[in-house]
């Protein structure tokens, strides 16, 4: 009798662990499928597994990946942020303007550092404003960030008079910036470092615990005396900051400041977070899950691209994957 119970509880623990790792199981499945479905090179090797292709996938998911880290925190607090694409555009425009139209006579390193700092700073300010106004005015996050999405896009287009700003290929500070940050290794390193930092914040700090608690049950958190305003504003400020960093990466890869950049990116970011297991109602989720979700989308895009699948079929496939991922995780037991 005792042994049966022991086996049952061991089995229950394994199933429990498996159910928490559902997103990883999904990733493994998609990777296996990609290996099977990958076209072959002339020497018979599997193109999907080429080191160059795998690092391509990492680089291509970096922009959305960086933003998804911030979105995880925002959604964990029970909120949402639709303005991330517009903040990305603003960041690329501030950066390109300072790199191409400001001649401070400084050493290139300083010029680039100030331009990047200003772009990320401006983005963080927008995030701060989002967070503060959501708290102060009591406007639902969906509405507030929807308004920001429209307003910040308008601001970016007004600042640049609807034009794009090319970051050149010569020898000036702008070109040096694009060559160094646009480099594949640099982009991947930025993404992975930020992932580690924010994983630590969520799992190993008091702030991380507060974020989860507020999303799980805000009333209870309030009664426990948690600093709700500070945590929420911080989450949106970090979202702004990470959108700004994503904008810097984007500008380096596309050699351009573009007020129309990032249109619709908020949906890719939210999809990645949701597939990774974070619940839209708040309180449940993880950075690991987000990274897995982002990777699933990245691998999917890659294998469909390697097989030259029509873009419209790609979009429909992604939609089905998103629905499946959420459906599978719907009744996962709360930890």
């Amino acid at each position, binding site marked *: 009798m005792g042994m049966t119970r022991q086996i049952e509880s061991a089995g229950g623990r394994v*199933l429990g662990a498996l*159910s928490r790792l*559902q997103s990883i*199981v*999904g990733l493994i*499945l*998609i990777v296996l*499928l990609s290996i099977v*479905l990958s*076209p072959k*090179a*002339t020497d018979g090797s599997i*193109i999907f597994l*080429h080191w*160059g*292709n795998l690092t*391509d996938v990492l680089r*291509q998911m970096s*922009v959305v990946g960086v933003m998804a880290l911030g979105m995880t925190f925002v959604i964990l607090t029970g909120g949402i942020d639709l303005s991330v694409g517009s903040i990305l555009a603003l960041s690329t425009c501030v950066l390109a303007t300072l790199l191409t139209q400001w001649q401070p006579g400084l050493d290139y390193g300083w010029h680039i550092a100030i331009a990047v700092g200003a772009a990320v700073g401006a983005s963080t300010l927008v995030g701060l404003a989002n967070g503060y106004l959501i708290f102060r005015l009591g406007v639902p996050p969906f509405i507030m960030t929807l308004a920001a999405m429209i307003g910040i896009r308008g601001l970016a287009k007004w600042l640049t008079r*609807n*034009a*794009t700003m*090319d*970051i*050149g*290929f010569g020898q000036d500070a702008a070109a040096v910036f694009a060559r160094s940050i*646009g480099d594949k290794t640099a982009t991947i390193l930025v993404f992975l470092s930020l992932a580690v930092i924010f994983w630590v914040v969520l799992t190993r700090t008091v702030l991380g615990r507060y974020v989860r608690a507020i999303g799980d049950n805000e009333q209870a958190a309030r009664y426990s005396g948690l600093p709700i305003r500070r945590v929420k504003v911080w989450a949106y400020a970090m979202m702004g900051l990470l959108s700004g960093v994503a904008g810097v990466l*984007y500008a380096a*890869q*596309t*050699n*351009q400041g*573009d007020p129309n*950049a990032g*249109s619709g990116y908020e949906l890719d970011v939210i999809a990645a977070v949701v597939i990774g297991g974070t619940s839209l109602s708040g309180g449940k989720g993880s950075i690991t899950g987000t990274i897995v979700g982002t990777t699933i989308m990245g691998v999917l*895009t*890659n*294998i*469909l*691209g*390697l*097989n*030259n*699948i*029509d*873009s*419209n*079929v790609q979009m429909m*496939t992604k939609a*089905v*994957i998103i629905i*499946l*991922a959420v*459906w*599978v995780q*719907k*009744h*996962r037991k709360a930890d």
Partner: protein
Amino acid sequence: MSNCGRVLCAAVVSVTLMLGGCKSSSSPTEGARKFTVIFSQCNNAEPYRAAQNDLMTRLWAQYPDVQFSILDAQQDDKKQIDQITTAIRQKPDLLIVAPNQRAPLTRVMGEAMRADIPVICLERDIVEPHYTTYIRCDNYAIGKMAGQFIVEHLKKKYGAPKGNIVQLQGLLGVEAEINRNNGAADVLKVYPDIKYVHTAVADWIQSKAKDRMIEALNANPQIDIVYAHNDPMAIGAYLAAREKSREKEMIFIGVDGLGGEQGGIKKVVDGVLAATFVYPLCVDKAVEIGNSILRNKDFKPQKEYVMTSTAVTPENAAELLKKTAN
């Protein structure tokens, strides 16, 4: 349904989806496919580009040993860069690119060249010449033809070169827009009595052009010419004028001259447009040069091919329409 059951269901659906999607496009017929040609199109959603895609698909289909696919970047620079990067991994025999914008696509097309893949740059240019050949149209010449047509028309109408022009522009900063604008402006600047009374940006889109034209109509009691930099905008302007019963007061000029029921040539036949200028799809040339590159190892294409345009007026419109129906 239990959670395990859901996971199983989801796994089965995913596997079926991916197997179905991938296998149907990647399996060649035995021994028939020898060449892979990939076309990176910046935006399938524009009529001009949809026409390019149709013609490109039809022309390549004439060669059973060519596997041809089109990538749609949906007007997103990063998406186009990523798609071309993935395409390079497949080592296609030919890459054709219609760049979304100049600077963003420059680096990745250089990577394709460095990977020894021949690259044809189609219709829009990039900052550095990272391509095997560039097939373009002369938008400045189109602008000049439009300007000359305007002068001739006004001379016939008033006996002297004078009149009021409303100009509708596409996306600013695109080479085509700048040159269609300047080509006409340079012709017209020697005639002080020909005036631009209203210039507005309508982003190449018919509905926006209609709105801008209504504003122009309200502000100007006498308009002689509407010069729109593409046919959809010219048609939008016509619709606005017709709403105000002023369509007989002025003539409408566009650019594109696509064939078929929806194209500009038909609109000239129908009397909606007084003239349009064929903006070549550049596709025939691309397929012709592409084929030579594929099959002839010693073939050295020119660095640039310039396609000429034709003016479409009521005199030759019917005939041109018949020709494009083939």
